[in-house]
Structure formats: structure tokens, C-alpha cells
């Protein structure tokens, strides 16, 4: 992109550009994903940050259907809403919410983590959530960077090879006549 700008402004051009970040939310805690998103949507990852200067970036989150809450939050975490009319107090567990809309959990988490002012809605418009890893072409073309996942996914027992299982140190050796179920 060669514009007719004096050299000093051209070297600054990249600092004010709006990047597009990609995050894969497979097997990740939605809160950690949401905090990474909110930092980048506000522009707090840039040294030129100012709350009034609109320098947030776009964030694309894929595989939101495969997020992983820790503990019993799928059954215990409750999302409440009230439309204002009498009798319309709705309470949904995280599992029900996720079934209804696979992107809602991360969307609500990010909405709660952004500053509660008028810029919040514009920042939410720059957040793009996709339940699976199928992204539309125009978004794929814009992506600039992929962010590393916050949580290291532990391997299942079936994913370990027999050699690794044998090489794992045993805590104690059972005697010959020990019966294991």
C-alpha cells in the first residue's frame, strides 16, 4: 500500500493499523479466552493505548462450540435475564445456553469484561465468533495473527503410546498374589 506520504508518517502507518487476531477456543476455558479478547478489543496490548482513541483490533474466535468449563460449571453456572415484563425472569444453566446458541457464553463473557461505556458496543461489533472452524472467506483473508491458546490441552490416556506408558515410573510394584480388579 504505497501512498504519497512523507517518510515519517509512513513508518508510523503500521502502528495505527487495525489487526485481525484469530483464537482457537477448542478445549479452552471461556473466561480465559474472553479476557484475551477483551484486552485486544480495547487496544490495551498496544503502547499507544488511550481509552478515547479507537485503537482496538478485530478478534475472531473459532470452535466456540468446543469450549471447556472447569468444575461443574456446565450444570451450576446460571445465566439470568429479565425483559422487564412481569413473569419473564429466565434462568438458564450454561449447558442449556450453550445448546441454544454455541457462541453465547463467550459473547456474554467478553461483554462483561469490556469497560461499561459507549465504546463497548463498537468493540463487540469487532468481535467475530464462530461455533466451528469454518470461517467465511472475507474474514480468512483479513486475519493477521493467531494467538497461542491459554490452556495446555492434556492428552487422553488413549493418546499415549504403549512405550510412553511403559516408560512412566511405577509408584509401587504389587506382589505376585495381589489381585487387581
Amino acid at each position, binding site marked *: 500500500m504505497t501512498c504519497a506520504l512523507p517518510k515519517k508518517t509512513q513508518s508510523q502507518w503500521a502502528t495505527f493499523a487495525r489487526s485481525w487476531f484469530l483464537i482457537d477456543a477448542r478445549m479452552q476455558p471461556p473466561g480465559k479466552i474472553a479476557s484475551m479478547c477483551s484486552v485486544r478489543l480495547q487496544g*490495551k*496490548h*498496544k*503502547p*499507544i*493505548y*488511550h481509552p478515547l482513541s479507537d485503537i482496538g483490533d478485530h478478534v475472531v474466535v473459532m470452535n466456540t462450540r468446543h469450549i471447556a468449563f472447569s468444575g461443574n460449571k456446565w450444570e451450576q453456572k446460571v445465566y439470568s435475564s429479565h425483559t422487564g415484563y412481569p413473569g419473564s425472569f429466565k434462568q438458564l444453566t450454561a449447558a442449556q445456553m450453550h445448546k441454544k446458541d454455541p457462541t453465547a457464553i463467550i459473547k456474554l463473557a467478553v461483554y462483561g469484561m469490556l469497560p461499561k461505556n459507549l465504546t463497548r458496543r463498537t468493540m463487540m461489533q469487532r468481535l467475530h465468533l464462530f461455533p466451528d472452524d469454518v470461517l467465511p472467506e472475507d474474514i480468512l483473508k483479513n486475519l493477521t495473527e493467531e494467538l497461542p491458546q491459554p490452556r495446555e490441552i492434556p492428552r487422553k490416556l488413549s493418546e499415549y503410546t504403549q512405550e510412553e506408558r511403559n516408560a512412566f515410573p511405577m509408584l509401587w510394584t504389587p506382589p505376585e498374589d495381589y489381585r487387581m480388579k
Partner: protein
Amino acid sequence: MSLLGMFWNQTVCLLQHFRGRKNRCYSLAVRAVRRAFVYASKARKAKRRSMRQLWIQRVAAASREQHMKYPALIHNLLKCSVALNRRVLCDLSITEPRSFQSLTALAHARRTEGLRAALGDGAEPPGVFSRITQLQ
């Protein structure tokens, strides 16, 4: 020498942007101008606070770009007797990114000083020199 004339001569440039009759009528204007002066005095103190907050946010962002957290950076620069304040660190992080990178490297070296002494082979970290290990 009318007080009314003195008032208008001295304050007309200040209250031109006020809303309603506060920019025209004497009694309302007197009260509005006094409030405006009070707000300005309070804001001069709040400005210093908000500027420091902004510097801290910017330095935190820049240090996170260099894989270091803001409290760790400040504490380790203090331990190295580098007495740069937050305003200067903020300006360096924006206009002199390489200098800021070297400051974070210095703070990182000072931070991992104990670990390297315990685990490492006593070699000096490459690229970091003249670091003060005792707070002066």
C-alpha cells in the same frame, strides 16, 4: 469603577460556551463561573492522577509485548537502581522501542539472577552488562 463591568470584562471569555442564561445573566453567571473555577481546581489534581494511570497502562502493554509483566519490570528496574519514572518509560516504549526492549532484558536478567545462580553455571547473561546487584 463598577463591579458589574469588572466582572463582565474579566470573565466574558470564560463563560461564552456555557448553556442557557448562564452566559448572559449576571446572577446565574456568577454562580456558574465560581463552580467552573472549583471544577478546574479539582481537575488539575485529577489530571496528574489520570496521566500516571495512562502511563502505567502503556508501560504494562509494552512490557507484555516483551513477555514481561508490569510489576516485575518496575520492581526489577528498581533493584537495578534504574530510576526512570513512568512518564519516561511510557515515552521510551512508544518512540524508542529498542531501548525499551533492552530495559526489559535488563529487568529480566535481574529477575532470574537468583535462579541462574542456583541452577546455572555462573555465566553472565549474554548482552546484559553493568547491572548492579545491590540496591544503592
